[in-house]
């Protein structure tokens, strides 16, 4: 007795296998298509990047050449920078310089009969002395120092009066 298949041919296991195979092929073609499309874009982008890099390298070569043409300028600027950075160390301590300028300013504007007697500036001290026969002038001088405001602190180191030379005042600044 022969076997009879009563199921519709569409539903037979063989047909399902064929349909699945066809579906997988379709999926494969879709994936391949997407990949080829994206891949083509990717390759175009890679070429674009390479062209940009080549342009950039070319521009760098031009700039390097132009900079080389200004090499003398660069050397001089480098030398200036080297010297100024070293001079910065030398000129950093302005204390003595300022002291000298302050005292010079004070002694340049002495009242008539007050004369400079001594001036001493070194690492340890800053002091100067003035001499006058006239106590009023000396008072005027002291007042002018206060008014000038050159010194925040002045120390009276000595105040000496002798009949032959008058008043000798020694002041120390800081």
């Amino acid at each position, binding site marked *: 007795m022969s076997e009879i298949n009563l199921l519709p041919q569409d539903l037979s*296991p063989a047909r399902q*296998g*064929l349909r*699945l*195979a066809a579906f*997988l*092929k379709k999926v*494969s073609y879709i*994936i*391949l298509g*997407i*990949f080829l499309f994206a*891949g083509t874009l*990717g*390759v175009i*982008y*890679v070429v674009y*990047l*390479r062209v*940009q*890099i080549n342009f950039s*390298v070319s521009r*760098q070569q031009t700039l*390097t050449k132009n*900079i080389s043409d*200004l090499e003398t*300028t*660069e*050397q001089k*600027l*480098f*030398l*200036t*920078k*080297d*010297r*100024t*950075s*070293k*001079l*910065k*160390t*030398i*000129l950093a*301590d302005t204390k*003595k*310089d300022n002291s*000298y300028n302050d005292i010079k300013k004070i*002694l340049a504007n002495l009242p008539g009969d007050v*004369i*400079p*007697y001594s*001036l*001493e*500036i*070194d*690492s340890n001290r800053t002091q100067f002395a003035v*001499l006058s026969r006239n106590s009023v002038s000396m008072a005027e001088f002291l007042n002018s120092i206060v008014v000038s405001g050159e010194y925040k602190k002045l120390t009276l180191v000595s105040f000496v009066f002798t009949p*032959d*030379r008058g008043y000798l005042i020694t002041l120390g600044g800081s």
Partner: protein
Amino acid sequence: MDNRNLFYSVGILLGVVLFAVFGTKLITDNVSSLNDQLAQNRDSESKLQAKLNSLSEVSSLVTTDSQVAIDALPEKNPVLSVLSNIRSSAASFGLTLNNVSSGEIVTGSSGAGLSSSEIIFETDGDYKNLTSLIDIIKSTSPVTIFDSIKVTSQSSLGGDTYRFVGHLFTYWASLPTTIPSVTQSFEGLTDEEQQILTRISALKPPPVGVSLIPSSSSAQLPNSNRSDPFSL
């Protein structure tokens, strides 16, 4: 036959998927690496452009500036030039130098490659001339720093004659032997260095004007293909 078709389709799908995965990875790796390379190139390019712009801007001023800087801090010990300047300035005020001595040379004392030597001298004259002499010494290149200034009246009663004893330091420093490579980014003067430059620009040039900037050299620098511009 159906099974073979199915296996064949699965095989194709797997092949396509693997091809797509590896292909995508290859392209993205390439793109990523090229992007990095392009970014680096553009960075170098912008640094070079900035350097070129800066150099073009300063080009006209730099010759004067470098001369001023080398006058202020020469390469060789300037003690003779300073002494000569002091002597001639003193003479212009009718002053004569006495007890002139050049003291100990201190090399590299400040840790900045600087060397210094000490000059001590004394002179007698009226107070105004002595302070003028001090001002001239302070305002002439090369840079000198007074370590001590002592002006004392020569009469106990005070009078016209004063004695000035000056104790000053003069400085020098060897020239740089290396310069940055062409591709290295350019650093201009800092504000502080610009201030120093302004300050030393106000100094009078030394009496004997000899350019201390060497013009050329064939010596090769150790870390650069550029010749040492400062080598004598």
